[in-house]
């Protein structure tokens, strides 16, 4: 697998797991007492954090809520670096 393909695969995983969080967030907004939903929401947030960590370790932070790893900085990662989402 090329570096680009690996990047896109890990990014897709982030998009998938983040989307599950978006969906459970809206659901729990209107179902605040649904205990099952709240539990699945908690699981979804953990899954999304794990997928994000996997991507960011290799390709740098997606948002500035994560500190760039020393490794990412050493290989030249900078926040203002392309590609931006619409360039991929």
């Amino acid at each position, binding site marked *: 697998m090329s570096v680009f393909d690996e990047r896109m695969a890990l990014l*897709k995983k982030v998009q998938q797991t983040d*989307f599950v969080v978006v969906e459970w*967030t*809206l659901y729990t907004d*209107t179902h605040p007492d649904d205990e099952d939903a709240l539990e699945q929401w908690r699981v979804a947030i953990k899954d999304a954090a794990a997928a994000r960590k996997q991507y960011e370790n290799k390709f740098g*932070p997606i*948002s500035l809520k994560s500190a760039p790893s020393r490794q990412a900085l050493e290989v030249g990662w900078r926040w203002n670096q392309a590609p931006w*989402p*619409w360039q991929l």
Partner: protein
Amino acid sequence: MWVYEKKLLYPVEVTTCNPMLARYIMEQYGGADGELAAALRYMNQRYTVPDKVIGLLTDISTEEFSHLEMLATMIYKLTKDATPEQLEKAGLGAHFVNHGHSLFYENAGGVPFTATYIQSKGDPIADLYEDIAAEEKARATYQWLIDISDDPGINDALRFLRERENIHSLRFREAVEMLKDERDRKKIF
């Protein structure tokens, strides 16, 4: 406050330059029932709705901004390699002489975005019904876009957005019921 995330909500794959399709998609970018209008509508209403529905308006508004970025990506990718001649053939000649290859908040007919697309009544039931209608109109527009487009990558992303409008409409309907329940409880006690 908001924090930028360097990723799209959902992947947008475009393989063929198609400025005509880009022009049609502008209806959802800067049109009356588009994502900019949606994001601004909910973000503005949220200050004066009951606490129970502030979270929903905040979260859906935030999601709409991510939809706006998906549409911008579609328009950018569909037009970035187009020649002035191709843009003119697609009906974007007037757009090109004013904006070059840059994007602009306008509808498919070239009418610029206006705040008059947005309603805000300060009455939660009136506002939420407005929001349900907005989601249904956006869903219908996505359907017409899918019907007119033959780009598989674009259609995949448009179908995702169409389904999101359905979900938002459903959540707004539930929010109306939450407020009605609360109102009815107040009458009893």
